[in-house]
């Protein structure tokens, strides 16, 4: 019995030893296999990375050469060797967009957005695609996500300002001037002044129907480059629209002087504008003028308006049966039409009535006898209040 137990213990011990040796052998084999696999994998990964790099470079070059189809194929190959590489995916999505495959591009960007919802580049791309597809709300939302997103490459502040400017441009296209002005004000405030930047913002504010802020940026541009004809012209144009005719005339004249003998279309337009500004300065019955000078201008204006009325009646444009015209004719028979300079000098209220009569006449003739030209057009301009920032969604 004792011998039997002893045999069993020996067997058991030999089994334990055998199992231990077998397990150690497996451990050793596993370790060797792991090291070999690791070595092969390293080599494999390096090779794939090289292939991915090579194909992505080709794709990048094709995209730069405006060959999006080729770029798509190359970038897809690059991605097959380096799946999930964000830069390649972004390039591929861009290439798809450039190739006119908007839906595919959009889906691709959406997929990328899912993994990195705060990425500025992806949101910007989505915004552009949404804008192209005409999804205004989505585009604005994506633009804003891009502005507040993260920008891995380059200067984040500059990139955000650039996106904001792009959003402003989009809003201008959409005739949403108020929101465009807000974006421009923020974007303009975030950056140092330079001639190009000031000119760009000046143009954008002008497009957003905000001549006052446009004028500020043009003035900054002039301050940077006092002899720059483009800045002077732009500033003169804005001053003209703001009814600052003296300034407009001065700036436009200076621009013309600088341009000298250049006979371009722009120069001719600016010359006309300068001439109009000068004439408006001559005609403008500003309350700040000395009384006699102002009355002389009022009488001249009244005379121009009367000539326009007479001419219109002669051509049959002004139907006497019209109650409005009858009323106007009645006013031309009244004291505001017949008062002389002495009477007007004594009665400041009459000055305004005479001026109003002239302006009303020009307005009515404009609608009854066709577009005004020459001094009549300038009088209409004087009749309008000076341009300020216009209302929303003009």
């Amino acid at each position, binding site marked *: 019995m004792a011998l039997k137990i002893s045999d069993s213990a020996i067997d*058991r011990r030999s*089994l334990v030893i055998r199992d231990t040796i*077998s397990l150690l052998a*497996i451990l050793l084999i*596993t370790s060797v296999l792991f090291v070999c696999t690791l070595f*092969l*994998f390293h080599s494999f990964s390096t090779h794939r990375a090289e292939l991915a790099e090579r194909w992505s470079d080709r794709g990048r070059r094709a995209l730069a050469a405006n060959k999006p189809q080729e770029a798509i194929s190359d970038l897809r190959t690059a991605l097959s060797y380096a799946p999930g590489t964000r830069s390649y995916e972004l390039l591929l999505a861009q290439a798809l967009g450039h190739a006119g495959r908007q839906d*595919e591009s959009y*889906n*691709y960007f959406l997929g990328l957005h899912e993994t990195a919802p705060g990425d500025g580049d992806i949101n910007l791309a989505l915004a552009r695609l949404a804008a192209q597809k005409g999804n205004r709300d989505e585009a604005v939302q994506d633009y804003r996500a891009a502005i507040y997103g993260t920008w891995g490459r380059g200067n984040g502040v500059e990139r955000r300002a650039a996106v904001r400017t792009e959003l402003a441009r989009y809003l201008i296209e959409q005739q949403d001037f108020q929101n465009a002005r807000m974006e421009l004000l923020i974007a303009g405030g975030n950056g140092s002044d330079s001639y190009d930047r000031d000119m760009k913002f000046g143009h954008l504010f002008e497009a957003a129907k905000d001549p006052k802020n446009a004028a500020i940026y043009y003035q900054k541009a002039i301050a940077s480059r006092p002899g720059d004809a483009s800045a002077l012209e732009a500033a003169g144009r804005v001053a003209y629209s703001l009814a600052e005719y003296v300034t407009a005339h001065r700036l436009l004249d200076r621009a013309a002087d600088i341009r000298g003998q250049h006979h371009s279309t722009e120069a001719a337009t600016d010359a006309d504008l300068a001439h109009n500004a000068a004439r408006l300065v001559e005609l403008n019955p500003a309350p700040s003028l000395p009384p006699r000078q102002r009355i002389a201008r009022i009488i001249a204006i009244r005379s121009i308006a009367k000539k326009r009325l007479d001419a219109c009646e002669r051509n049959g444009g002004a139907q006497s049966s019209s109650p409005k015209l009858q009323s106007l004719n009645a006013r031309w028979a009244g004291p505001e039409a017949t008062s002389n300079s002495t009477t007007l000098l004594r009665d400041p209220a009459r000055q305004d009535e005479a001026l109003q009569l002239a302006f009303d006449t020009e307005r009515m003739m404009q609608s009854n006898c066709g577009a005004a030209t020459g001094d009549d057009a300038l009088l209409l301009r004087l009749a309008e209040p000076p341009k300020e920032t216009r209302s929303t969604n003009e």
Partner: protein
Amino acid sequence: MNSSQSSASTSSVLSIDPRAASIREERLLLLLSIFVGIISGLLVVSFRMAIDWLTVLLQGSSPAPHQLRLLEVPTIAGLIIALLVRFVFPAARGSGVNQTKAALYISNGYISTRTVLGKFLLSALAIGSGHSLGPEDPSLQIGAGVASLISRRFGLSRARLRLFAPIGAAAGLAAAFNAPISAILFVIEEVIGNWSAAVLGSVVLSAISAVVVARWFWGAEPMFRIPVVNLVDPRELMAYAVLGVIGGVASLGFTKALGWLRPMLRRQPANWQLIHPPAAGFLVGCIGYFGLPQIMGAGYETIDQAMHGQFALKLLLLLALFKIIATTLSFSSGTPGGMFAPTLFIGAMLGGAVGAFEHNLLPHLTGSIASYALVGMGVLFAAFLRAPLTSVFMVLEVSGNYSIILPVILSNTIAYLLSRALQPVPIFEIFTHQDGLYLPSMEEQREESNLHLEDALHGVTAPVLQGSESLASSASAYAQYAGSPDSTAILVQCSDGLWYAATRAEVESILIGSAPDPAAPAAASQPGEDIKAMAGDSAASPESDANTKLEQRLGSERTPVLFPDLPLASALPHFRRWPLLPVTNRAVRGALEGTISLEDVLKRYQQR
């Protein structure tokens, strides 16, 4: 070492007691499962690298239509594969799933090293050269082979050896898909066929070990990434239901094509079979050469592109159609490789097509094409491979996106049910029949309705005595059953709520007060006649004996507690001891639902 040798366990050769041997094997099973998982994971990583390397080497780094090598490479590779399969690795052809099942059910878990090596090399060459096959099935078999190889070295018992093949299979599949749950479920659903705690623990350990290794190398990113699916409009589920129907029909076409071509090619003479792989390679190459190189190889990049909506509707449908053709050609030719990746490819293309169509028709609905492609993958997996549970988890795991769950469940269920209705025999079973094997069908096993005790249950007709009553009272009560034909067995209800089913002879011997006489039941002309006499004589008996309770004389043993919902087979072992089995209610202890006899059980089985 062959299978018969392997069955001789070390523990039986060395004389240690069976209990110690069993404990040793249990511990080894768990420990070796980890090693199996790690080694399988490493081999699957190497296998995937080999495929990728060969793809670049043979097809070039960017295969495109009209490249002559697309025709040359799969043809030449096909010829090499055909020769190697014929003369060096004959077991490398065929489905890895079925070979693993065969190892489990036929050859005691034995898979030869040569088979594993052949599967590794030839599958890598086939897929790398552009044959339309996938790496998962060979990975599964590589895992199973590794497990078989390791387990044989430890001289385990035959029962344990058998289990190792599916354990390794789970590891191989988990590493290939980077999806442990799907691999575990697939092995349970398709290979083992039932849930057993002993196997489950090992399968889980090996699958997790393999995935850890795979993720060490490939990273933990899910295979496919799709946006979150928000079902804003429940009507969108209709589109997913349509996808389920399309998937069911497509899987039928795919199954029919394989079921027709594969046996036809296998019937041809052995020498003729040498030209099948090169011919298949040439035809697949033609599809690639003339415009669809995406169908060559496993096609995971193409699936990813489809998910990103990079293919138009028409191209998606063409890719699905030609992938079915290419895979049918490649697989039927006997080229080693798997069906998983092509199935996912076809499903993704069909899903993408449904998504693209839905977007064109109803642009306001929210589902992305990616979500449809992903659901499509699951749909074909469920319908073609007939693994509905695995298909759901596979979609969740490869995308890492739980938001897709509702569409996946709906579509997969529809596709699975439709496929079952249209094609009752699953594809793996078709292959086993074609190969002349008769392995158990896991789908049939799942569907099998097992008989329960309630199916053979009878009302209580046997005499019932109360164990708490005295022998005298019991004798009087028993006497009432005199002449009853059902009194060959007597039920005694004991005061602890349990029952004792006694033979008539046993009861009578107690009540008479003598030891049971085996001849007594036969000798008694009428049951209870002796008892009548005893009841009459009871006044003459000593008082203490008359007051003894019946259950005291029965001893402490009781009939087993059985409930109506237990399997009918569970009653069989008890008939050796008990003439009748009481079946009780689960809610009320001791309350009889009925009784069951051996005759009842046999009759019920004969009625099936």
